[in-house]
């Protein structure tokens, strides 16, 4: 059972949250090339290690959160709002 610290609600079990998506990407310009859009929508790093991802507190305050989670150990090292960044980002989550 993962335990996620929602900045609004505190530490809660992951059953209250829904995984959203990889947080290491941002919306391309509307007129970006099809290749850029293709990469944005489909290409993923599939990191084994520390990874930034979006989760939504669906059964709580409904906020979207940015979560730094180790995909190997499931350890969650940081949680913030979508436009925050973790204090020190290690190499893996690029």
């Amino acid at each position, binding site marked *: 059972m993962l335990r996620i610290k929602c900045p609004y609600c505190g530490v809660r079990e992951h059953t209250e949250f829904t995984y959203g998506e990889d947080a290491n990407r941002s919306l391309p310009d509307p007129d970006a090339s*099809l290749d850029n*859009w293709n990469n944005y929508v489909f290409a993923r790093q599939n990191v084994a290690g520390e990874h930034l991802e979006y989760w939504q507190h669906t059964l709580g305050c409904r906020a979207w959160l940015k979560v730094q989670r180790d995909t190997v150990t*499931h350890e969650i090292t940081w949680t913030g709002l*979508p436009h925050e960044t973790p204090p020190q980002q290690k190499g893996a989550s690029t």
Partner: protein
Amino acid sequence: MSGFRSHLGRLNDEQISFSFNGQSLSARIGDTVASALLANGIEVVGRSFKYHRPRGVNSCGAEESGALVSIGIGAEQEPNVRATMQLVTEGMQVSSQNCWPSPQFDLLAINNFVGSLFPSSPLAAGFYYKTFMWPAKFWYKLYEPAIRRAAGMGKVPDQADKAAYDRINSFYDIAIIGGGAAGLSAALSAAQSGLRIVLMDEHAILGGQLLHLPKQQQDLEQWRQNTIASLIAADNVTILTNTVCWGRFDGNTLAAHEVVDGKVRHNFHKIHAEKIIIATGAIERPLVFTNNDKPGVMLASGARKFLNHYGVAAGRQMVLFTNNDSAYKTAFDYHDQGLPVTAIIDSRESRSEHLFEACQQRGIPVHQNSVVTKAKGWHGVRSVQVAEFKDDGTLGASHDITCDLVAHSGGWSPQVQMASHGGTPPIYDEQITAFVVDQQAADTWSVGAAQGEFGLQAGIKQAMVAAQAACQALACQGGAVLIPTEDINGELNIEPLWSAPAPSKQKNKQFVDIQHDVTTADIGLAHKEGFISVEHMKRYTTLGMANDQGRTANVNALAMMAGHLEQGIAVTGTTRFRPPIAPVSLGSIAGREVGEHVRPLRRTPMQEWHERQGAVFVEAGLFRRPQYYPIGNAGNETLDQAYVREAAHVRAKVGLCDVSSLGKIEIVGPDSAIFLDRIYVNLFSSLPVNKARYGIMLREDGHIYDDGTTSRLADDRYFMTTTTAKAGAVLSHLERCLEIDWPELQVRVSSVSERWAAMAVAGPQSRATLQLAFPEMDFSQAALPFMGLAHGEYQGIPLRILRVSFSGELAYEVYVQADHGEQVWQHIMAMGQSYDIIPYGLEALGTLRIEKGHVTGAELDGRVTLADVNMQRMASKKKWFVGQNLMQREGLQDPKRPCLVGLKAVDPQQAIPTGAILVNENKLVTGCDKQGWVSSMTYSPALDSFIALGFLTAGQERIGETIYAAYPLQGQHIPVEVVSSHFYDPDNTRVKDQ
């Protein structure tokens, strides 16, 4: 007769009665089924899994692999209960498993001898994979039922389980798993910090192996009782007995299974603990020798606990067989109780002098450097065959020793499952010849015998240090624990003996995994056939896969495989430990979420009206929506009759349909219009106030996500509807876009699905009906044109009325506060009587929309584009929207993509099955090209024909062609004409121009 009650042990003399296979027996309160059966002289408890060999009690705990029984009868029956873990209660009905007609005389015991008739036994390792391969159809009809009858454990009751189960969530600062000396010490130390502590133990009584000691060892008995008393007195400590912790998961979550004696059968505890102390102890490992599965062969620790705790002698004449020091205490305790110990067979070359002297004092003969090669006896053991090793390592001449109890010990295996869950692999420790986990996971400590520390005082100190460290990590201080003055020496002086050599030229079985009937020969076969990885060996032989999870079998089997491979045990490694480590009832995991409570039921405000009306319901997500309203009593009118009647009635007069399950989202803020322009493919910024528009939204990958009608309430306020199925997902999508992609937009979205009841009023008389119902509002074409929104009220209740149509008739959707839904519904029904109004269900709603070619979830299945449903013109070119870019991918622009068409049965009375494949071939053949599929089908009263919607390759160019709807599962091949999907009133005159 073998075992008997010799004294009281720790129990009192209060008697209760229970039955075994119908025979009434007596027990004492505190007896387990195992101790009570032994006390009554029962040797054979059941028959084994494959070979139907007689089996009896062979341990005193969770590792039991022999005595599995069924408890209770009928629906109440619980199979595969370990007799050693189940307390006897008054009137309990216990029965044997896997034997017929009785455990004493079992006809399928023939399986035991079949092996010798074939070169390789048909029941040996891998027999499932090798035998019964051909012909395939024999498998289901013949082989499988025969095997299922013959091989197996207890029977699952065929009636519904009436027992109740509960799920309990709890939070603690420190969880301690295991209530032996180490666990008790850790709990007592931690308790003094004031933190919230939970202590779990799978047995009914705390103390672990302290309970194996004679009650007369007063210092330790007093220490145990005092410690427990202190823990009970501490109000920050929760003690869960009869509770096995069966898994450790991410985030320090523990799963535990509690056996409860009461209205609830089992509790499932989900426990979150900041820190975890693992004090799960160790279990004794068996020695492997020929016929080591016979009733009367028992782990030395088991024989000792039966005697000292339950006061039950497990036999009348003991032989002890060991490769280490620890087991000698069993022989001494039996001897000191006046029970004869005929011999100690010690496989070691060297001897421990103090034990040897103790044996001499008692007059117990010790056979050094010797092994038991075979246990003899028809059902239970009556003698053992013993031989001494010669200098060259071979066995000398053997002789028999009479006995009815073989207590044996091959060393001790720390219970490392909990420490290992989460992925830390155990490593082999040569010193104790067992696996331990040496790298601790974060926030966990493993202490005492679970960590390979077998000495009592050392284990207690280790537990105390761990508890203090755990408390300190939580900024509190753990206390000290009184160390008992008496110690138990943990030195085993073990010399490994993985299996005793078999007596020459004899093929009798030596069991490694007793519960799954896996023998040393099976391990050899796995090696010979190349299944040498321990994970492969496990699966090929099924070793360790019974409900004891190979507690006693694994280390011996790994050592044997290492021997075959001529390599070390450490290199060979061990299989991975995964939860659950003990049998867990499915009922406890389901808890109360059974039957109607599997999922919550969402009710619309008009639900009770529908129920009173006798509606037949159909599941739609979490809703149960009226499918149709049969005339008269249920059963008088079929579904097919009812939906055709209801649909025709709506086209002729007027009908009322509950559409409250639609998702409803309010979108508020100055940037709402910009936001909706990005979300939907079409423009919403140009939508005037009090007007509605049909909208489609795409996913980022360019496929259609959802559709619905959205109306503008004010410049900065919209009211969106979504499909019932996508209501939650669309809300999350909107929230995601606002918080992640466009945080600069000043918009808030909120679900108002539960706030509004919604009902569709459809049919030529809908205007007249509403005008009569709400006379203060103006429903004229001029005042409320198609796609208009009007506000009004009824008895002070605000109404929103949209003129939209899903049915293709003049129609309205009435939205009202949920609390007043039924009231307004009844009012419309009452006023509509003058126009012959009827309620109509989901099935008629489907008919009406298919006749109009409107799409729903059956068409918008996540794989279609705007062009696929002929709506490419809806995409605005004046703006950017989600999905616009990837909508233009080459693959999604292919003109050969299947697109939406109408299909009309050539024979109007022939149904077109939904899911049928569209093909060009005029008869059912294999290998033809799929041209498309049928997505929705109905009988159309308006067209007096079966019609369907489907997707057909380049469909728009093929209007007028005849193709075939193939449904090979039912041998159907139906000619259909390709037509426009707008079957009925294609110009929408009935909707708009009235």
